């Protein structure tokens, strides 16, 4: 019998060393053109679980659960866990889980609205944080 996801998470946290990712995901929501670019930072305990395997549920269970109304049974806590991922595969999984589909799946425009970048390309100066946009020409992140 598959253990509940939350129980697996508690057990994993007690056993695994956290892993700080060397990547960030910069994204802009095309439905909110005036909003600044957002920066997704993988959680170190989540990344440890992804790299370990047999803890996290399949990504498609989260995608199906998006359409399940509040209060109705969800699939992802009870699904059988998936094997270990590489860090790159884990980032792709996280994009599909935590970034709205209109960014990574549905966008048809010409702008680049999402970039996976090394941590070093995220500006450390946050003076104009609400003006950050994805740089369309150079390899600078914002």
């Amino acid at each position, binding site marked *: 019998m598959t253990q509940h996801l939350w129980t697996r*998470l508690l057990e994993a946290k007690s056993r695994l060393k956290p892993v700080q990712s060397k990547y960030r995901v910069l994204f802009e929501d095309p439905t909110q053109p005036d909003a600044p670019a957002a*920066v997704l*930072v993988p959680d170190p305990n989540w990344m440890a679980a992804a790299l370990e395997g047999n803890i996290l549920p399949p990504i498609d269970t989260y995608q199906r659960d998006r359409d399940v109304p509040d209060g109705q049974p969800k699939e992802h806590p009870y699904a059988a866990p998936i094997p270990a991922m590489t860090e790159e595969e884990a980032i792709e999984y996280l994009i599909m889980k935590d970034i709205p589909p209109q960014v990574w799946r549905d966008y048809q425009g010409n702008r680049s609205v999402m970039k996976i970048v090394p941590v070093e390309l995220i500006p450390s100066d946050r003076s104009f944080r609400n003006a950050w946009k994805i740089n369309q020409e150079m390899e600078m992140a914002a």
Partner: protein
Amino acid sequence: MSTLNVSNITDGTTTVGTSYVVNGSTKAWVAANGSAVIRNSSNISSGVDNGTGDFSYPLINAYSAEEDYVTTATVRHSTDGLIATRNSSRDFATQLAIETSNDAGSLGDYGHEIMSVGDLA
């Protein structure tokens, strides 16, 4: 002193793992800096820095419904009087979301801690 070594506890109808007792029943918590970089957490998959003072934290195991959990948050900073409040436009059963601000209400990037309890999906 005796030690009970069991995996589950039951009242005859409902069974829960002893991990709920050993590890407490806070279903999600996170401590992060003013860029959503997570120092430590439980049941969080990522931090999202949405802009100045605007942070969200998607859950690995979602809550059952938006009415089924409560959240509290504080700012951790050398200056007292800073405020963390729930961001209702981003806070759902699938993610925690807060805004951090100074005592005049202006959003600012401050380290913060969030704790949440409720019924999981």
